[in-house]
């Protein structure tokens, strides 16, 4: 909690002179995510896919061994990717490379930082390594993005040092409904918080299970102190545009691209629809002739114990 206060103060107050370069500060971690805004981050499992994503205009790629749809289909424990695979992807593209660590697995995170990835996703898509604690993300120079289904969860991740939040959705389904639910939930709770009188924010903080200074900051600014992306089930240009209209600042697309009939074209179309998310004519134009979308599964048909969004707390 003291750390969160320090971060908040550093953003609003004038600086003491910095005569030596400082790395891994909250500002460079959060600032990195600011640069990704309005963009699409794509899951890739090979260097070839990474190149396709970069060619299509992705702002970053997420290097992983299996896309969520395959993790879901094949089952078993899902872990951090092989360092050789990550190196291969890092060497294939010039855009930022993200990689996933299991929830609470701080050594996977240490390894990913040592490999030089640009962002770590502490992700519910992988099998959690700790069912009580998340990673202490302040202990790292590399920034972290974490998933959230509601505002309290988002604020707890930020308290632990997350520099970017993504709504979770339900990864590997191609069903956008949970992404919608989570984005509406987070944005709705922020709006509600902003409407509260100051003396009700103390109880709001208690109910959100988040530190008061952070709750107060969100109430005052009407937004999270970090960038908010969306994820989990986005499979079409219209899906991406809807999430942007609902208030997402950018989009993660997992299985939706490389599980579709024409990944290159679909990837380009999702990038364009994200930039012109408020222009239906443009979305119509880019949605033409994309071939088969990812087949997908309805979230309703996924038994509750197999729903990834339930992981993390």
């Amino acid at each position, binding site marked *: 909690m003291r750390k969160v206060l320090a971060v908040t103060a550093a953003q609003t107050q004038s600086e003491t002179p*910095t005569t030596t370069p400082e790395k891994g*500060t909250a500002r*460079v971690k959060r*600032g990195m995510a600011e*640069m990704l805004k*309005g963009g699409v981050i794509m899951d890739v499992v090979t260097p070839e896919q990474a190149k396709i994503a*970069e060619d299509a*205009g992705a*702002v970053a790629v997420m290097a992983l061994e299996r896309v969520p749809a395959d993790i879901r289909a094949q089952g078993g424990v899902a872990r951090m990717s092989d360092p050789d695979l990550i190196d291969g992807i890092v060497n294939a593209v010039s855009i930022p490379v993200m990689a996933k660590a299991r929830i609470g697995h701080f050594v996977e995170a240490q390894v990913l930082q040592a490999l030089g*990835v640009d962002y770590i996703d502490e992700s519910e898509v992988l099998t959690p390594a700790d069912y009580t604690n998340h990673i202490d993300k302040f202990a790292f120079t590399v920034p972290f993005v974490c998933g959230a289904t509601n505002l309290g969860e988002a604020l707890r991740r930020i308290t632990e040092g997350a520099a970017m939040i993504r709504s979770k959705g339900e990864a590997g389904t191609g069903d956008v409904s949970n992404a919608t639910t989570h984005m509406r939930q987070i944005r709705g709770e922020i709006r509600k918080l902003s409407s509260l009188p100051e003396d009700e924010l103390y109880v709001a903080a208690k109910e959100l299970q988040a530190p008061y200074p952070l709750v107060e900051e969100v109430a005052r600014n009407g937004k999270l102190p970090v960038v908010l992306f969306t994820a989990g089930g986005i499979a079409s240009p219209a899906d991406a545009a809807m999430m942007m209209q609902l208030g997402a600042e950018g989009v993660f697309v997992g299985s939706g691209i490389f599980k579709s009939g024409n990944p290159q074209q679909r990837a380009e179309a999702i990038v364009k629809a994200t930039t012109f998310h408020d222009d239906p004519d443009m979305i119509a134009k880019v949605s033409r002739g994309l071939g088969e979308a990812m087949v997908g599964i309805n979230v309703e048909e996924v038994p509750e114990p197999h729903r990834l969004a339930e992981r993390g707390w």
Partner: protein
Amino acid sequence: MSAAQPCVGVLALQGDVREHVASLRAAGVRTMTVRRESELAAVDGLVIPGGESTTMSRLLDTFELLEPLRKRLASGMPAYGSCAGMILLANEVLDGREDQHQLGALDITVRRNAFGRQVDSFEEDLAFTGIDDGPVHAVFIRAPWVESARQDVEVLAAVPDTAVAGPAAGRIVAVRQGTVLATAFHPELTGDGRVHRLFADIVRAAVSEDAA
């Protein structure tokens, strides 16, 4: 000032558009986001924000903004680029993609991601020529640096030449050529409005010169 404030656009294909819009507003100019040729035609100056230069380059081409933007820059429209914006404004880029487009508004060669990957991103105070009241707090995020600048490019800031800076020591990170300004770092992230005020002044001067 009697005339209405000039309108400064922010290229809004991707990147930290909102922060630039807020900084420009604080500098007293009107602002609008630019994604279409008609919007580009309506502005007196343009900010190219931080973001991913390869993505913006690709989208400039896709949305048919590349040639109109080059034309406006060639005819003297003031422009300011931070980070990715500096890369796009430059004549030449090293460590970029082969198909990356250059706007050619600055006679400089930039090196993309010159300081390293995200773990090497940093913040530091810099002396900035033409900006008073102390150093500018500079935030570098996977930033480029200026590898070389031709004669008529004015160097405004460089990384301090100290031992801790390593290969970054003395590298040029802010330049101006005529009405085109560029920084490798992100003043829009710090709430320090001085660089944007400098650019707003450049735009105002250009507009009143046109009117004269």
